[in-house]
């Protein structure tokens, strides 16, 4: 009954989860949508599509479904291409924000849970302080310190999104660290960090993944709010800036920018939510008994 047993157990959890998701048509559709968005984002990033988003192709505010698929914006640029380019921004915001908060959350949560004592107290104090300050204030402060731009959007959202995961990981690590397999690992002389990262973390990975997918979609939504506050992406189109434009356009009947960005965002956020839920149902052992 050593670590190997625990490993097979966690492996079977994954296989089981995979099977379950495979049977869930909705989750598979969601996964496909997410992959499609990633593909679009990648192609746009590589400059293969939507590189000429800044080109003026017709009259200002041309209506959609005529000569132009989704109409044109103030400068006569294609709303459709802007939407595609916005996908790149949105996906990069989701991905990097998710990664940043994942790294911070897992590291701090793991260390706090594993070492306990003073280290734990300091980290708990730190995230309690952090979580009691309203996010908007932190976002603003970070944006001011780092200046505006895509980089500070990543960092601002990443640096404010780790607390939940950190708390979760800390709790799980505490539960795991006294388990037999960890003790067995120390018996064969594993160092602390080896034990933490090699043995314990794989067993809490499912929490990280669920959290990541939820973090991803909330980051995409937050980008819109940041744009509204003037702290958002600058120089390239994003769904946030497109929606922000709409606050001046709607009253004159220009609805297509708002619609394009809203729909583009709707599907990917929805897909991530469904995927997150499906992953949780499949991976969270608590619900496995049903």
């Amino acid at each position, binding site marked *: 009954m050593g670590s190997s047993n625990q490993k097979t157990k966690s492996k079977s959890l994954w296989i089981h989860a995979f099977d379950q998701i495979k049977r869930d048509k*909705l989750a598979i559709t969601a996964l496909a949508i997410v992959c499609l968005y990633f593909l679009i984002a990648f192609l746009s990033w590589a400059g293969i599509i939507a590189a000429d988003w800044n080109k003026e192709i017709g009259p200002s505010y041309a209506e959609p479904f005529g000569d132009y698929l989704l109409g044109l914006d103030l400068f006569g640029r294609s709303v459709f291409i802007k939407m595609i380019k916005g996908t790149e921004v949105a996906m990069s915001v989701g991905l990097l924000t998710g990664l940043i908060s994942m790294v911070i959350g897992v590291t701090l949560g793991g260390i706090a849970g594993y070492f306990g004592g003073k280290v734990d107290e300091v980290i708990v*104090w*730190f995230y*309690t*302080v*952090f*979580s*009691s*300050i*309203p996010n*908007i*204030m932190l976002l*603003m*402060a970070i944006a*001011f*310190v780092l200046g505006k731009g895509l980089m500070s959007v990543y960092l601002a959202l990443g640096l404010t999104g780790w607390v939940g995961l950190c708390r979760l990981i800390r709790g799980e690590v505490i539960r795991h660290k006294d388990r037999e397999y960890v003790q067995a690992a120390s018996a064969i002389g594993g160092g602390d960090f080896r034990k933490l990262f090699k043995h314990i973390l794989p067993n809490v990975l499912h929490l990280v993944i669920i959290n990541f997918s939820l973090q991803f*979609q909330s980051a995409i*939504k937050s980008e*819109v*709010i940041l744009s*509204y*506050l*003037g702290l958002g992406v600058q120089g390239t189109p994003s*769904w946030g800036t497109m*929606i*922000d434009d*709409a*606050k001046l356009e*709607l*009253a004159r009947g220009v609805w297509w920018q*708002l619609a394009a960005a*809203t729909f583009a*965002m*709707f*599907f990917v*956020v*929805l897909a991530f*939510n*469904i995927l997150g*839920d499906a992953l949780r149902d499949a991976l969270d052992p*608590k*619900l496995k*008994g*049903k």
Partner: protein
Amino acid sequence: MSLWTYIIRRLLYVIPVVLGVCLVVFVLFNVVLGDPTQILLGKHATAAQMAEMRAELGLDQSWFIQYIDVVKSAFTFDFGRSWSTKQEIISMIKEGAIPSLTLSLPAFFIATVFSIVISLFVSFYRGGLLDKTIVLVCVGLMSVSSLVYILYGQWFFAYKLGLFEISGYEEGFPYFIPYVALPVIIWVIISLGPDVRFYRTVMLDEIYMDYVRTARAKGLSEKVILFKHVLKNAMIPIITYVIIQLPFLILGALLFESFFSIPGLGGMTLTAINSLDFPVIRAMTVLSAIAYIVFSVITDVLYTVVDPRVRLS
């Protein structure tokens, strides 16, 4: 450990956290963001004037003294005056709290009741098509940016259909209702997604417990189980979830308030951010942090009273 020692220990823990919040606030505003005098004096400022201003604001003091001032304000609630409006901050907060609460309390209450009802309903039909559809709709509703709801709702429902006031606020009951109705509805729609999802999980957690199986084995009807047992036991996490959200209501809703011209704390904070009115931002940060800490202590304590096992772990 007795209940009282636990409560006292928990209360004492508030102090280091408040000190920490003050530290973060101090570092952000006094150290990193630095000298605001230029901002305050506007386009015609001279260097001499800026120096005079720094002295007026006490910014030429040592950092330690400035930090102590921040801490002091957290305990005395004396935040001084706003830089841009020259108003006393504490009275600005008092005045802004009422409009904020007239918006956020009803919205929160309605959203919570709705979500609980809906999640009870879907738990009853768990796994079925109805469950899946309703959850999907709720999640769909939250997949649209709140800004879109606001923009569209104001244009369509308030202007085109004339169902609500477009923007503004009127003091006193019931005059404020036409002004807050639309933001409240939007708030409810946005909250349904996360809330239903959470409450549903909580209820499903309970439904799969052993005691439910026992009850079912005893032949109790599903409805009785759901309302008598599941809801009762799910109440603890539900109450926790509700209480922990309360402090955020004080801040109201930034976007709603600024878009619908409701003179509450959220809009005030947004204005302060846009004009770099540090004392106001600082006050709002410290106050909401304190509210958050106090409410989380209350949650913890309640939790312990209800379920003594928690204290031991």
